[in-house]
Every structure is written in C-alpha cells, then in structure tokens.
C-alpha cells in the first residue's frame, strides 16, 4: 500500500506548541502539506523543520587570564541541526586569552555555513 512521506513535528514558534503533521505533497507550492497547526507561522516552521532543521548552538570555550576559566559562546545564527556535535568538537580545542569583548568572533565561518561563533560576554583580564 502506498504511504506518503509523513513527519510529526511540534511547533516551537509560540508557547501553544501545536502538534503538526507534515505530509509530502508534490502539488503544494513548497512540496509539503501541514495539518494540525493553528496559524501560518506554524506551517512555515513545519516545512522548515522537515526540510532544513537548524538550531542556534550555545556553549563555552576555554579562556585564560580572566575571572573565569570558561567563556560563553554561541553561533551567531542557526546552523544545520546535524552539525551540533561537530561544532562542539570544533570548539573544544579553542583557547582564548582575556580580555575578550562581547560579540568578538571566536571561530569564523564554521563548516562553511557562513556563520561565526561569537563571544557572548566580555571578560576583562585579571591578575
């Protein structure tokens, strides 16, 4: 029996958290039909979550000479979800030296996504 491609997705755009079903449908403009949602934003989210799920990743890197041994960082924008662990590996070897300014690029253009990893706080140098 033919069964169309179908995905269950929980919408995270707003707190209602609609349970969406995203069904492959050639004739739809973006190739998918979304049911179970309450609004347009949810439909857009559903398709994106199925075709190109992305996330902002936040973590820390090592820093020397500052108040703390770790400096918090983030991806400036979303990166493809499957790169989460790759990114963690990538930044595990980073070691910065205080001072650092908020927004400073820690690693540029990770995995050629065009997205930078940036510092999310400033840290002064301390003796």
């Amino acid at each position, binding site marked *: 029996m033919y069964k169309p491609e179908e995905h269950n997705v*929980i919408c995270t755009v707003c707190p209602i958290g609609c349970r969406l079903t995203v069904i492959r449908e050639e004739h739809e403009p973006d190739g998918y039909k979304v049911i179970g949602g309450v609004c347009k934003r949810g439909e857009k989210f559903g398709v994106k979550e199925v075709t190109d799920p992305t996330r902002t990743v936040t973590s820390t890197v090592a820093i020397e000479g500052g108040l703390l041994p770790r400096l918090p960082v983030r991806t400036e924008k979303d990166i493809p979800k499957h790169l989460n662990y790759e990114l963690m590996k990538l930044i595990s070897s980073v070691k910065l030296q205080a001072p650092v300014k908020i927004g400073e690029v820690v690693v540029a253009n990770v995995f050629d996504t065009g997205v930078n990893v940036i510092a999310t706080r400033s840290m002064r140098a301390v003796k």
Partner: protein
Amino acid sequence: MQQYEVVIVGGGPAGLAAAIEARKNGAQSVVVLERDRELGGILQQCIHHGFGLVVFNEELTGPEYAERFIDELMKLGIEYRLETMVLEVNADKTIRAISPNDGMIEIQAKAIVLNMGCRERTRGAIAIPGFRPAGVFSAGTAQRFVNMEGYMVGKRVVILGSGDIGLIMARRMALEGAKVLAVAEIMPYSGGLTRNIVQCLHDYDIPLYLSHTITEVRGKERVEGVTIAEVDENRKPMTGTEKHYDCDTLLLSVGLIPENELSRGAGIQLDPVTGGPIVNEAMETSVSGIFASGNVVHVHDLVDWVTEESRRAGAYAARYVQNKLVEDASVIASRPGDGIGYVVPHKVRPENLNDKLAIFMRVKEVFHDAKLVVKADGEVVYSRKKRHMAPGEMEIVQVDAQKLKDLKPAELLVSVEGGETVHV
C-alpha cells in the same frame, strides 16, 4: 553611616533595571550592592539563548542580556559595589553589609529595592528516599559547574523535574558528551516551555516521563542508579511501574523559591503562595519605602518580565524619594479567583498608576480555549480568550488604569472562565 537615596540589594537583571530606572527618574544617589564578584546575577550562568524577545525583540543569551544592562549602568555612572553581602535590612531603611574591601558597611537609605533573586528547591524539600551519595545536584548548581567552572558533573544522568532549567541542562550535558537517560516529571504536564522540550529533549532523543517520580537513589558513595515510578492522582508512586536506571548523576529541577531571608528580617509580609513579599502597584512591600522586584517577589520564567517589573520598582522608588507617591490612597485588593494560583501585585492604589496596571499571575492547570477575566467588584474590566495557558508560563494582563480610577472598586478578582483543563 553612609547616606543614599536608593539602595538596590542584588545586581542581577532585576537590580540592574531598578537602578537604571531609579536614576532616570531623578534619584541622585543610587548604589547597587552585589555579593558576587560581578554583576548580572543568575544570567551569567544561563549561557543558552532565549532571553530578550520582549525587551529587545531579539533572542539573546543570558550573559548578553545582562551585559546590555551592565553597560547602561556604567554609562549612567551608577555606583555599584561587588563582593558586598547585605546581612540586614531594617524597617527604618538602614542596611548592614560586609565586604572584604570596605569591611562593615552601614547605610541609611531613603528607599530600598530588594532584588535578591531566588534559590533552588533541594532534594530534602521533596524527601527522595534512598542513600545520600555524591552526584545529586540541583540543576542550577550543575549549570554553574558546567558553564562557569568548566567541570562536568556526571556521565550518565537522570533528571527529576521538567522545569526549564532541567531541560536546558539536559541538552547542555548531552552536548558535552554525557548520556542523559530520562527526565521524570511528577505532574501530568511539563513545567517547561514546549520549545525547550523539542530543542532540549527531542533533539537529543531524551525521553520525558510525565506523572513519574524518583523512588530510590542507589549508591553509598556516588550515585550508582535511580528508580523512577509512575504516580497515581495523589502523586503516590504505584508499585509495578518502576524503571531502573544505572547512572552516576541525578539532577533536580524541582522548583525555585524567592530568597526571602532579608525580607523576613525587615518584617515584610510575605505571600505564602509565591514565597515573596506582598507588594502594591509600585512594587512596594508592606514596609513603606522598601520595594522589591524580580525573582525575589515571585519566580519568573522570562527575564523580560523581570526587567519590566523592576523598571517599575526603580521608577516608583525614585518617586517615593521625591515624595511623589500617593501613600494614603484608596486601596484595591487584587486576588486570585478560579484557576489562578497567585497574582502580583496584591494591592493597587489607582492614583499612582500611569495608563495601565500590569497584573502578573500563574494559572493552576493547563487550559485550552479559556478566558482570562478581571472583574472589579463584579464588573468585567478585562477579558481575553486564550488558546493555551499553563502553570509553567506566567500570564500578564494590562488593565486600563482610568477604569480603575473611575470605578474605585474594593476588589479586583482574576479568574479563568470556560475552556477545558488539559491532561497531557
């Protein structure tokens, strides 16, 4: 004895916003007293994003959000003292604090804003049976170790409580290479945001067990395992539903309570439901001239509302110092009605309102398609249909101030009407 117009106790987001707003509203001498080595409060360890959507219309991490306010504080030249622990706040608005640099400090303030934040509930608060080994952490303590000190607290982890901090830590630990085995939640619904359930649990294939609790902790020296079991409608574990996990770590995310030692010491009346001070429209406590805002009043899930509330507290504190606050005005009591756990503020003097009265509240259950209604002595002054309300998400309503000034009611009653309660 040092003299200040406005003294801010605590330099987290609440204290920072209150200090800035007090200055902007004309208070000349303002000082922030912070016991930590830096400003920013709990935000410095909340390195995840999800802060600032309301205030800045963008998604920031905790430290980024904090730094914006710290920068503004510096620009305004507001005085702050670090490593300064306030030991005593008195009803006569004297403060006693200590610091390694300044020793014993005594201050006479004209107004005080309390912004000490909250603390986490512990294992004892929920009396989990079993051994008491190392490896049981509150989620916030674990967050500090991992995010600020750079140490892992475990390799195989079970989390009790599905509040946002627990969910955020599930993802954080998983990303750092730990195996997060399960999240157990005693209530039939999650205490955290849907978004966190998706991005912190689903993304990492971490199961969430609703209506489950921990029934045993094993391991004499270090945690060796835990047992979770399903609970009945009285939240008692049911035999035969146990699941055993081999793990070395148990994280607890079982709720926060306002830090109320100083409030209590000052003789401030507390609300037994929120655990924080009873406040009026000015965020003033039962002691005249002592204000409070942020998590020390009631636990917030969004820092943006902490900022909103604290700006008001700071502005009103400045007005108090300038004798611009109407003190002996008519007082409206605002109360929680059906479906509502608590409301803040508890008292309203309409004369002091600008154009709107913001009422913060939490509902008691998950509601779908219900109405949130505010009645002034029976007359509806606000009503809005809500698709979704949950205890984990604070609700805010804005009531027209003019209406209250006209009606001068004795009571404001906030309730949930109609709709269905949802059991997930």
